[in-house]
Structure formats: C-alpha cells, structure tokens
C-alpha cells in the first residue's frame, strides 16, 4: 500500500516497542538484566587489566591496543545483540512451533522474528562498550578525524553484520534440525573471544580460518591495522584493512541464501 521502507520501519518500531513494553511489565527483572550485562563487561575488562599488569605486551600489542581491539569487537557484538538477539534461541521458536504463528503473518518471517523481540538491556552493553572504546581510542593516541570516525562506524556495522550472519547460520541449523544451542555457542562466543585478541597469536591455520571461513579477523584485527597504524598483515594483502564491509556482505549473502533454503525445508513440529 505505502512505501515498503516506511511500512517496515514503522512496523519494526511498533513490534519492537510492543516487546519492550512487555518486558517493562517486569521492571525488576529488566533492571537486573541491565546490571548483569554491565557487571559482566566490567569483569572482563578487569580481567584484561590484570592480565596486562603481568604481560606488558603480546606480540608488540600494548594494553591500550588490546583494549581498543576488544572494545571494537564488543561494540560490534552489542550492536548485533540489539538487532539480532532473537536468533540466539531460535531453536525454541522451531521446537515450540512459534514459527508457525510468524508464518501466517503477511510479513517476511526473518523481519518479523527480528523485530518482535528486541532486547533493550543489550543497549546497556552498548553503553559500556562505547565508554571502553572511547577510553581505548584516547589511550591508543589515535587522532580523531572525520575519515577515522566514519571508518570506525563502518567497521562496527560490518563487524556486527558478520556476527549477525553467524547468528543466521545457527538459526538455519535450528530450522533444519530443531537444535542449535551448541552451534550458536561455538559461532558466537568463540567469534567474540577470537575478535578480542590479535590473530597474530594464533597459528597460520587458525588465522586462515578466521580470515576466509569465519571472517572474525575482519571484525577487529584488519580494521585495527588501519586505525592503530600497524603493519602486521601476516602475509595477507594490506587492503584487507578495508575489507570488512566486503567480507560482511559476502558472508551475509551466503548465510541468507542458506537461511532461505532452511526455510523451505522447515518441517514444523507436526501437531
């Protein structure tokens, strides 16, 4: 009827708003979730700090460098969590038959699923990530220019798209098998951890895996080369520092194609 972009933006806000309002019915639980997320982040940072009072540098990476890397990954992760968290326990949608209720609505199923459970407490994760990122940005003595600002935003968005593609992949596994918990853990948690450290600490095979198969290196490492002014491409071409958007789009297209196939094979729960 009206412009699809207008329609879907409006619908997204309405559906997300409905979920947030539902969650706010249980204010205490919402508050606890926020607190838990912030506490979790704080612990990780503390741990990182303790580690670096012992080990001054890792392969020439200083504490501010690592913090910068970590917070870049954590920003991408937070952004992905706000937009794509619904896919985290997608196997439940499949097993409990909630997907049936989605499929009878005249909207694309993926859109509906994404819009209908936007967890606002992940915004608190975003907040802590921004604070840490700004601190790291300052401590690593990166001069802020418009170009670098834009580059950072594009990097974060690309990184969250890469992580989102992993989510989509695990949701596709859920569609096909009704189970996805462990695969989600492996893909998401492992990629988040992997993104937090320079890949130069890994052996070649892992580096190749993190570059070409699960392109986690494009979430933090290669873009950080550009921002930190480093030159440790480890045999990869230097233009990989700008490769994040390309990797993100390519991966997302692959995973979306698999999702479409998964949708077709969706067998539902029977009765």
């Amino acid at each position, binding site marked *: 009827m009206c412009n699809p972009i207008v329609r879907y933006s409006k619908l997204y806000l309405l559906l997300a708003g409905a979920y947030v309002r*539902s969650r706010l019915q249980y204010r205490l639980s919402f508050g606890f979730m926020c607190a838990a997320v912030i506490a979790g982040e704080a612990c990780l940072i503390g741990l990182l700090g303790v580690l670096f009072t012992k080990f001054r540098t890792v392969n020439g990476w200083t504490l501010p460098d690592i913090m910068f890397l970590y917070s870049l990954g954590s920003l991408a992760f937070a952004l992905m969590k706000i937009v794509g968290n619904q896919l985290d326990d997608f196997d439940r949608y499949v097993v409990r038959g909630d997907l049936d209720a989605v499929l009878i609505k005249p909207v694309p199923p993926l859109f509906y699923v994404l819009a209908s459970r936007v967890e606002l407490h992940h915004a608190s994760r975003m907040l802590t990530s921004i604070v840490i990122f700004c601190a790291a940005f300052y401590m690593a003595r990166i001069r802020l220019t418009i170009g670098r600002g834009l580059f950072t935003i594009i990097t974060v968005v690309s990184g969250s798209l890469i992580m989102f593609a992993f989510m989509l992949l695990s949701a596709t596994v859920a569609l096909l098998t009704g189970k996805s918990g462990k695969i989600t853990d492996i893909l998401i948690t492992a990629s988040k951890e992997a993104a937090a450290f320079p890949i130069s600490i890994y052996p070649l095979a892992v580096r190749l895996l993190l570059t070409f198969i699960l392109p986690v290196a494009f979430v933090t490492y290669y873009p950080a080369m550009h921002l930190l002014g480093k030159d440790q491409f480890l045999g990869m071409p230097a233009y990989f520092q700008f490769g994040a958007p390309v990797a993100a789009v390519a991966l997302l297209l692959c995973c979306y194609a698999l999702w479409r196939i998964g949708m077709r094979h969706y067998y539902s729960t029977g009765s």
Partner: protein
Amino acid sequence: MSIIKVEHLCKQFKVRERPAGFWRGLGGLFSRTHHIIQAVDDVNFTLQRGDMVGYIGANGAGKSTTIKMLTGILVPTSGKIDVMGLTPYQHRRQYTRRIGVVFGQRTQLWWDLPVMDSFELLKHIYEIPERTYKQNLAFFSELLQLDCLTSMPVRTLSLGERMRCDLTAALLHNPEILYLDEPTIGLDVVAKEQVRQFLQRVNAERQVTVILTTHDLNDVEKICQRLLIIDTGRIIYDGGIDALKQRYGRTRMLIVDLARAYSKIQIENVDVIRREGNRIWLAFDRDTISASEVITRVTAHYEIQDLTISEPEIEEIVRKIYQSGMTD
C-alpha cells in the same frame, strides 16, 4: 465456486534417528539414517465459498499437517493446493492477508500487553484501513462482549476470554477463509457454545469459509454441514453428517437397568456390548430388528427397571470408522 482445491496432497516427514550426546548428535546431522513418515497421503477435496467444514481425525492422523499446508506454513511433498487462485506457500505474503488462522493451543496475542495493543499491532501488520478496523472491532466487540476485556493484559484472561479475543484477532482484516485448529480445546461448555455460535454467525453474515479441526464432535455436529475424516493420512470420509449417520449409524443402543443380576444374557440379533453392575448396553441394527421388538424380547426374558434408547452418537460412529477403517 470452489475456493479451496486440494489435489493428491502428500506430506512426508523424514525423521532422523539422532543419537544422544553432542558429538554423536553432531554426526547425526550428516548421517543418512532416517525413516519416512507419511503424514498426509493423497488427500483430495474441494471446498465452496461459504462452506463450513469440520476436519477430524485422531491424534497424529494428519489434521494439523493438512491445515499447516493449507495455511502456507508447510510445503507439501507433492500434490497441489489452490486457494483462491494462490498456492499458499508460494504466495505466502499475499495469501496470508486473505486468511485468518486460530491455533487453539497457542494465542497469537501479545501475552503481556493489553488485548487492545494486540489488535492495534495487527492493524499495522495487515495494513487494515482505519474504517474497516473500527467497524470490525465494533462488530466483534458486540458479538463477543469484548468491552471489558480489551484493556486487560492477555495473560490475565481466562481461556474462554482469550479465545474470544483470538477469534477477533484472526478476523480483523476481513479474511475470506478462517482456519481453526482445535478452537474449543480446553473450554468449558458455555464457552464452547459461544465459540460455535460465533462461528456460525461469522459464516452466515460475512460469508467466511470456515474449516476447523477438532476432537470435540459436538462442534462438528452442531455447526458443520460437511465433515472430512482423516485417518493415517488418508481421507476416509467426505460428506454430510446426516449421510454419515445414515450410512454408519444404523446401530441403535438400548441401555437397560435390570431389576436383578443375571449370570447370562442372550437375545437374538442383539449384542451385549457392555455390562456395569445391573446396567447393560445392547446394540442392534435397526434394519434387522426394530426397537420395539428388542424391548419386547428383553422384557419377555428379564425383569427390568428402566430403559433408554440412544441415538447414534457421531462420536460412536467415528470411533467405529477409526477402528475398522472404511469397509467400502
């Protein structure tokens, strides 16, 4: 004019044998050990606009699978579904605008929000014009007495109240077909009756084609003109309810309370199908022997206290069909 046309519809499920444990489970993803379940097997039927059809079958007979294919949730293994010129799973987005679906066991309302919020959201999801929305809301509010419910969170509603709201939610966008999967499950007698009357009115006044699955044969008997019975994936009966009674309901039942206990009861052309203390259930074929004849014979040999003749219950008939399969 036919509105739903189903031809040679089949649905197979591959059931993987998945071993327990993570690593073996992961291996199971790639293993080829599975068996095939034929959930729906060569189903054919045609519905006319304005029909009100009951679709019944035992658990696992293939009812829900058929409904899921009709609503576009599942893709058939083979066969054709043509609804209003559309193929449900292919034209899903276009198609779902024109149908309403109610799952009795699951609400499609937003659990923690007031009922009205759900209606508003559906208005946007289905892009219902404001005028239509207002008119429909007024119509259903009156018919289902929703006025005092709409401001309450869905989770606080009783099952019956929730079903009334779910029915409204499924009909707000003026669907031409309404699919109901077990709409009366778990409801009390009054609520069931309310749902039935409502469906009848919607069918009569709005020409909505209704197809419902149910376990409660009273639903079917009271509101459906036509009955489809499915068993192990196949349609074993398709026709009117009266015709079904005519054909399979020749058996009458005489329930007799005997004055005292008899060790053995034997009457020609009559089967004793159940005994409970001094009460016996006698079944007879009304074409072979008349009811008065049976009573005469019983009273001639036994001392009785009370008796009742029962009409064939559709439930009884269906049970027999399930047990024996179709004889012809």
